[in-house]
């Protein structure tokens, strides 16, 4: 893989930031398309690892995920290009809204638009969840971790931070001794 230029990385992550509606999870469908499918900068597994790290470290999940991908591509400068790149659209858009359009979100037509966008984002996230399950769950132990993590959050409202930490410990304890994981 040829290393992309810092400016190209900055632009790519700015593009991802512009197309992300919602929190860090809403970014993943766009990242998969831009950074994995079309540019092949990282693999799907790497994206999951980076996303997990971003979950348990301070800061914004989307920015931290971008910074980790950026470092992987071009070291320190790369993590800055990616991190600040994905923040740029937010800064520009929110400044414009705060300057001129504070009443905009109260318009019924805008509210209807965002209701519909949420449906599209739901479909994107279900699709991403399905793909990540296929990539991340390789054996029975993986299924157990997936299911217990899901139930712990849905039923008991356990914070994602604890889920990631507990699953890391489970990985250390239950990693298959013989044979290898695909």
């Amino acid at each position, binding site marked *: 893989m040829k290393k992309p230029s810092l400016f190209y990385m900055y632009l790519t992550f700015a593009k991802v*930031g*512009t*197309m*992300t509606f*919602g*929190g860090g999870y809403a970014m993943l469908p766009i990242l998969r398309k831009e950074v994995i499918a079309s540019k092949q900068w990282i693999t799907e*597994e790497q994206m*999951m*690892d980076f996303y*997990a*790290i971003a979950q348990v*470290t*301070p*800061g*914004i999940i*989307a*920015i931290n995920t971008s*910074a*980790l991908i950026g*470092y*992987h591509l071009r070291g320190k400068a790369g*993590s800055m290009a990616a991190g600040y790149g994905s*923040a740029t*659209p*937010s*800064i520009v*858009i*929110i400044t414009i809204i*705060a*300057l001129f359009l504070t009443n905009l*979100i109260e318009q019924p037509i805008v509210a*209807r*638009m*965002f209701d*519909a*966008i949420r*449906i599209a984002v*739901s*479909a*994107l*996230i*279900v*699709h991403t*969840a399905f793909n990540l399950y296929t*990539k*991340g769950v390789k054996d029975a132990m993986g299924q157990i*971790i*997936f299911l217990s*993590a*899901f139930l712990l*959050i*849905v039923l008991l409202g356990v914070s*994602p*931070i604890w889920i*990631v930490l507990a*699953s*890391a410990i*489970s990985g*250390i304890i239950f*990693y298959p001794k013989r044979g290898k994981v695909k």
Partner: protein
Amino acid sequence: MTYLYLLLEFLKIGTFSIGGGLATLPFLYALASRYDWFDQATLIDMIAISESTPGAIGINMATYAGFTAGGIGGGILASIAMITPGILMMMIISKVLTEFKENPLIIKVFYGIRPAVAALIAYAAYEMLKVTMFENHTFSIETIHIGSVVLFFAFLLALFKTKIHPVIFIVIAAVLGIFLPL
């Protein structure tokens, strides 16, 4: 002086908020009571705007809060201050990870974490579906929203069957939302 306080406060938020956008909320509430930058009612508007515009919620909130406190410069300063500690931390983590990539412990940790990440995204999907498909966010036959369900499955089918860019779905949804009462 406002700039200096903004810089310090948002560096602090960036360093201590773990878990993404809404994890910054308690910090912003604290700011509302300690400074006359914005009040709690404005904060609720900020959340609505941050959630319905592109970009990660955490930075959107920082830009908006910084703007209310110190104009355009304040918005930019607060956003950069908020994300920089995370980006620096990601550089350090990336460096360590690159050195220990083949370390058995790291391999075991990510073996456990990947299924949990899939579960986190599945949970995000579940939460999104609850909001978009059901009135009052409660699961039952009476509250299900037929129009949304049809649109959702149409999007999902297209996602599995084609390679259309995710942002196309968002644009289509926005247009449908304007013209069709869903």
